[in-house]
């Protein structure tokens, strides 16, 4: 049995760490017996909650990916008959053709699911929960109960969103940005009936979940750090989760207000977003509202949201790149500074989504300046990652491959943001496939790569077993190649001006030249989607039958690797280790091993202490 085989990383042991035997001082929490229900379902253990977020996220990711395959089939082969999909889609296939309204529903649900349910809840929810207490040296979150509520609000929100897909009138179909009046008027599109109501209710619950989680993350990072863990010794993962939570806490309430006002407009006859509308043979009485107001409110969340999605990935990638290059992360302080810069700036760039909505052009100029400034901290991060690789001693674990892939995708997608942030250029590019290609690379695929990197890296800590590396390699290369095959050609389609959310391009001569390329993109997208099942198999197989992990399989410095292989509720069986140094003492000259964990005091590493560390050793 593979499970009993000694693993590839023989227990190097931490260099003379004060180590308490596990079975001597069991942490008190482990004494009381837990039923299945309190241990796995209504658990207050941050590690279990993290896994709940992860597995729910995986479910949503499969669904979100499947939806995208469906609409890519329509885009790639618009003339073909879709009758073979009738068993799945039922009445949404009409006389062999996909219903155009259902096409919009697919696009909308794909966006909503991926942005909120997978990349916000699945990514940040999983790793903030899992890593914050483990890496700062805490027994659990500040409030385990609130943390549990956070998951169950997310779960309720998920159920409601899932149900909405099966409604008679279809789920929300106004795009994931749900701009009114389209999203407010069922006369305009059937999805804006019950589907939209459920969308709004689900999203309200989702926001509550995010706020409960966020308050907890922030409180935990501020208050529960172990002895010695100053803010300047935090791993970059924690910094990124912390700032992500701050962003979420400040921006999600604004989305909540937008959703609330939209509910009022839809159900109670107010006119926040509606004015001068004649629809379905009838002039509505609403006047004085502004659809642009909604866009301001939406993007005030919506823009920080893309950083909420990408920052945790940045943090994890920084950590994984350093660990596997066996080098300190380059420019630790600059990395924190750029995270802070990005967080701050992310609140003042939202209107770059609205250059051509009729907003005052002067405002457009201001937001153009602010938007292009945000490229600077992002650039600093990229250079620092590259410098981290430079003269490293790189181990290509699957997590490392995904981290390198992340950097590549982040560059490729980030650069085109410089085009879109330029208001003059956005006139042509706005709402074309250029935008779609841009954000799928920079926040979609990159964040997914960050998620995968995180799962491959911390899987041993989550389940006490290793994911299979070979399958991981296959998964990485399939995905990396697939993603580029999908999104690079998509830029061409965008430069040619193809508008997004089009059911077909057959009606326009201007958009007739890329039928073959669209087929190619569709084929690549479906290929990349199928490739993900390698991961799904690997994931569930390895939970039960993967090779057993060692305590610190990656020879990493951070505190989570000082816990037992399967940490119980409370994380450390004995006292929580104290922290003495920053988390990136890799390959320090003079040190015996090429890593020195954070809990090793300077007094034990005389040979490698730097001049300024000598006095701390005494």
């Amino acid at each position: 049995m593979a499970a009993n085989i000694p693993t590839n990383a023989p227990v190097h042991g931490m260099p003379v760490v004060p180590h308490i035997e596990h079975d001597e001082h069991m942490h008190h929490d482990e004494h009381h017996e837990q039923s299945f229900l309190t241990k796995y379902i209504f658990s207050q253990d941050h590690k279990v909650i993290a896994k709940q977020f992860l597995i729910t996220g995986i479910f949503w990711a499969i669904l979100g990916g499947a939806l995208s395959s469906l609409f890519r089939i329509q885009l790639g082969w618009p003339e073909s008959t879709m009758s073979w999909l009738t068993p799945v889609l039922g009445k949404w296939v009409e006389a062999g053709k996909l219903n155009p309204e259902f096409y919009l529903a697919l696009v909308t649900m794909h966006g909503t699911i991926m942005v909120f349910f997978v990349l916000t809840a699945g990514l940040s929810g999983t790793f903030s929960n899992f890593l914050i207490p483990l890496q700062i040296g805490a027994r659990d979150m500040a409030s385990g109960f609130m943390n549990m509520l956070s998951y169950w609000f997310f779960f309720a929100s998920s159920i409601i969103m899932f149900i909405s897909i099966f409604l008679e009138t279809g789920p929300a179909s106004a795009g994931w940005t749900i701009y009114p009046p389209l999203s407010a008027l069922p006369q305009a599109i059937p999805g804006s009936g019950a589907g939209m109501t459920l969308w709004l209710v689900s999203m309200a619950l989702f926001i509550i979940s995010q706020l409960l989680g966020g308050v907890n993350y922030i409180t935990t990072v501020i208050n529960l750090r172990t002895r010695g863990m100053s803010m300047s010794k935090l791993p970059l993962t924690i910094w990124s989760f912390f700032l992500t939570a701050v962003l979420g806490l400040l921006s999600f309430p604004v989305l909540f207000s937008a959703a609330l006002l939209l509910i009022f407009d839809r159900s109670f006859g107010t006119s926040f977003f509606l004015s001068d509308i004649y629809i379905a043979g009838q002039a509505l009485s609403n006047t004085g509202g502004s659809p642009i107001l909604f866009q301001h409110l939406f993007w005030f969340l919506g823009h920080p949201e893309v950083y909420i999605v990408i920052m945790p990935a940045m943090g994890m990638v920084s950590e994984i790149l350093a660990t596997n290059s066996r080098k300190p992360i380059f420019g630790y302080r600059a990395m924190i500074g750029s995270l802070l810069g990005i967080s701050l700036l992310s609140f003042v760039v939202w209107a770059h989504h609205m250059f051509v909505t009729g907003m005052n052009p002067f405002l457009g100029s201001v937001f153009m300046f602010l938007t292009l400034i945000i490229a600077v901290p992002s650039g600093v991060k990229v250079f620092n990652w590259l410098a981290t690789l430079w003269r490293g001693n790189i181990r290509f674990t699957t997590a490392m491959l995904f981290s390198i892939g992340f950097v590549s995708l982040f560059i490729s997608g980030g650069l085109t943001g410089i085009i879109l942030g330029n208001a003059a250029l956005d006139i042509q590019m706005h709402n074309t496939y250029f935008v779609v290609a841009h954000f799928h690379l920079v926040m979609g695929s990159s964040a997914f790569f960050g998620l995968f990197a995180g799962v491959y890296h911390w899987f041993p800590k989550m389940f006490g077993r290793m994911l299979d590396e070979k399958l991981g390699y296959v998964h990485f290369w399939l995905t990396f190649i697939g993603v580029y095959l999908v999104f690079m050609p998509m830029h061409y389609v965008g430069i040619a001006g193809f508008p997004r959310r089009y059911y077909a391009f057959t009606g326009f001569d201007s958009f007739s030249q890329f039928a073959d390329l669209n087929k190619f993109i569709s084929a690549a997208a479906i290929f990349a989607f199928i490739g993900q099942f390698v991961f799904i198999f690997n994931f569930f197989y390895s939970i039960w039958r993967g090779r057993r992990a060692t305590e610190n399989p990656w020879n990493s410095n951070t505190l989570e690797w000082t816990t037992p292989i399967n940490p119980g509720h409370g994380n450390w069986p004995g006292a929580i280790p104290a922290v003495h140094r920053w988390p990136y003492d890799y390959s320090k000259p003079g040190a015996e091993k090429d890593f020195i964990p954070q809990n090793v005091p300077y007094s034990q590493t005389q040979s490698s202490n730097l001049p300024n560390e000598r006095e701390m050793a005494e």
Partner: protein
Amino acid sequence: MIALGILLVLVLLLVVFGLLFRLQILTSIFSGSLTREIGMSNRVNAILMIVFMVVGGGAFAWSFIDNYAKMNPPIASIHGYAVENMFWTTMIILGVAFTLTHLMLFIFSYRYQHKDGRRAFFFSHNNKIEIIWTLIPAIVMASLVFAGWKEWTKITGPAPKDAIVLEVMGKQFNWLVRYPGRDQKLGVVNYRLIDATNEFGFDLNDNNAMDDFTVNEIHVPKGHPVLLKIRSRDVLHGVYMPNFRVQMYAVPGMPTKFWFTPTKTTDEMRAQLGNPKFNYELACSQICGRGHFAMKAIIVVDEPDDYVAWFAQQKSFAEQNPDVLASFKQKSDKLVKSKNTDAAAVMNQTTKASL
């Protein structure tokens, strides 16, 4: 039955795959490759990084060049050329950054792959190079912003006084177009007056509206600034004319505008492209419902003389719809009467008071 068969095949494939996987693990355990810390696969992955860079980079360059001709919608407006220049200049700068960073990423990955006995270089920071690589992007960004800002203010600035005015109104799912007529003034419209014939909601009590005319095809003269007034009567739409590099949302309750100067007539463009069927198209760029993908209008760019001739031929909405005009007359007559009596009453009162 077929579905069941397919399902069965899939399940069997999965089982075969699982068994093969298990077999692979067992053999690698027996060959001892799992106990080595850094194995052969490290080297394979490092090589794949270089292969990916070379093959991927090559494929990208080839496909880009191959598709370049199809990528750029032919330009037909003055600001379109400026925007196009800026776009490709920016793309070149981005291309350089893209190439350099990717070269570093993949070459470093290959060059610094794990070697037994080697130690990584302990290099935690270097203020000088960090300042340099913060400043360089900052300067490049600043110049891009400046160029963009100048162009943006020019494009979105006020339209020239002599611009031709016309209005485009989005509705589910087509575009309605009206011209101001001889008086060059668009008359009052009101969404409450919209019905099947009066699609624009003309208020024919307004004198300016009397000579307004609606058309199906937009006509504009070459070389003359055109001011598009844009509105929507139901949901958001987006006026998007890729050849003119024009895009602006149509917002219900909030009129928007965009002005541009066409530089090539439709005929000239047809000759240039060698495509006698070419037309300038107006597409909807903002999701608006079932027919979003089919909201098309044609724009015809005429020689100025032809435009004048075309304009003179158009009949006003009022002229074409005498019924609508008559109903407005009726209503307004009533209104005038009641107003007159009101006015008379007020007069009486004031005269009484003054007496």
